[in-house]
């Protein structure tokens, strides 16, 4: 997944990661990426951010079991949170990620 890593924040803290799976460059993908920026900015935890285009990397979509796009997987402390959609409800997403 190397080249897909996209550091938005401090990469030294690998305790948590945010993986955003999108399908090509469509409206949902662009909205999701933009909303993810805000989420990352407002999230008070340092996290790794990864954006994957499933159309380019179907194998990853299979291994990560991505059914719908955009999908955001937040891994922290061995737990995973899943958010589906273009993340338009940033407050809701933040609330979900903090639980």
């Amino acid at each position, binding site marked *: 997944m190397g080249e897909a890593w996209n550091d938005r924040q401090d990469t030294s803290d690998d305790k948590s990661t945010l993986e955003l799976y999108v399908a090509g460059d469509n409206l949902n993908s662009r909205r999701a990426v933009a*909303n993810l920026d805000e989420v990352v900015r407002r999230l008070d935890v340092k996290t790794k951010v990864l954006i994957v285009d499933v159309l380019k990397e179907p*194998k990853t979509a299979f291994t990560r079991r991505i059914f719908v796009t955009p999908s955001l997987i937040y891994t922290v402390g061995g737990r995973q949170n899943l958010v589906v959609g273009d993340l338009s409800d940033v407050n809701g997403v933040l609330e979900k990620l903090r639980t």
Partner: protein
Amino acid sequence: MVEPVGTGTYDRKLRTGIDGFDCMSEGGLPVGKVSAVVGTAGAGKTVFAMQSMIHCLRSNPGVGVVVSFEQSTASLTADLASFDWNAAELIEQGRLIVIDGRPRADVLFSGAFDISGLLAMVEGAAAPDRPACVVFDGIDTLMTLLSSSSSQRLELLRLQNHIQCLGTTAILTLKANPATSGGFEEIALYMADCVVEMRREGQDSVSRRSIWIQKYRGSGHSLARVPFIVTFKGVEVEGVDSRPNTAQVSNDRLSMGVTQLDEMLGGGLFRGTSTLISGAPGTAKTTLGLAFLNAMCQRGERALGICFDERPNEIVRNVSSVGIDLTPHIASGLLHLHGIANQTAGPDEFAYEIATAIRQHRARHLLIDPISVFTQEAPAQNAVRRIIQLCKREGITVILTSLLDRNALEAEASRSYVSTICDTWVHLTYVIHGGERNRALTIIKSRGTAHSNQVGELLLDDNGLTIARTYTEEGEVLMGSLRWQKERANEQAIRDAEEEAARHYREAEQSVEELSGRVTSLSNELEAKREELKRLSQKAAMITQLERERRSQLSRLRSAGEPIQQAVQEVP
């Protein structure tokens, strides 16, 4: 990658391995297209889809991907293991990939999304090749996550487009819910190139399943709703053979094993025809049917008996008491008696089991004892019709026994239409008269045969079955000991008449003899009388002469002279 098969206008088809369905669809599902399997819960949609996919993987190279939106991988794998498809082997080889697609309970939905992930995932699962076949099992579950019907429509079109680009064959299964029709189900049905509907419905404590093709773009297909069953082999749809029946019509007459009955039937049954033997309990329907099978085995032809009521070994024992020994035929393998194990199954299961038994035994002659286990409801009657059609097509001679509680024929005719489709109908009744119960046999119909209109009495004894001609006495048919009495009485009467005639002859002969004797004696007498008459007449003449002479002499003596002279002169 996928070998296209099929015939007709649509020349790229993927066989499902379900013979009946491949027949209905004229070759199977469309290759490189989306097929939708819709139906109620428990109809067998998943079985159909998985069976088709596994058959595809067995006959083609490549990888199959199944995404199950309703059950876990473990659960689906366990389900697959209950069929004889050896799916575990395919999974082990990595040729069958099972993905758990159940939505996670803790997922947060935030804004718009689409199913590109699913399509990418399926592609990724089979990478670097394209998947040969994809199953989305219970895709309605995924679709309901989409907020609006317009996005559902959009996603289904995306799916269709993607599948066509991939060139893979996709099978979607979805639950049909009439309450929410107008939703994505309808869109799915419009979108799919082939729509198969499967239905399960309860009826008389037996649930029935049926399958039909709702649409098939660019291909001919059967319009019929066809019953199917699910066995360890998966979905089994009975062969719906749309080819015209080209089976040869035979003029070969087959003995029913009862000489007199063959005579009544104008020489026996035609090969490849169907015969109904109806009658009240105990009228020897089974025995008559087995007599036929016995006769066929004696000809060296393969025969099959389907027994619902009795176990095969009971049947063998019971008919041995009337001189029919089936054991050598069973030992030689010519005869197979197939007991139906599951008595509670539905008509379609029965029909399937019978069809399978016919194939396995390569039977040329069939007895179903009794056919009346099939009720008069339409589905059961359809099952019967399919069995008879199969037999007609294969040139199998079939005998069906049917139990009747009442003696009325009208009741039989209305109860089941079997009697109308059978070529020959033999009816057995009890006739109770003179303190006894006897079996009466009539042939109600026999197509293409100048059959007897007489009622026969069916007799069973150690030596087998015979039919006695019954006697009509003042409009009443006599049977049993009355018939015996009548037969004896008739024999006596004939003997009496013969004796009487002989006596009359003798008497007449005597009279003739006597009369001719009398004639002889009378003619003798007559002759004697004539002789006497002659004698008498001569005597009379002589007497007259003598008298005249005496008189003349006397007159001469009384008067001398001339008169005496004259008299002397007169006598020279």
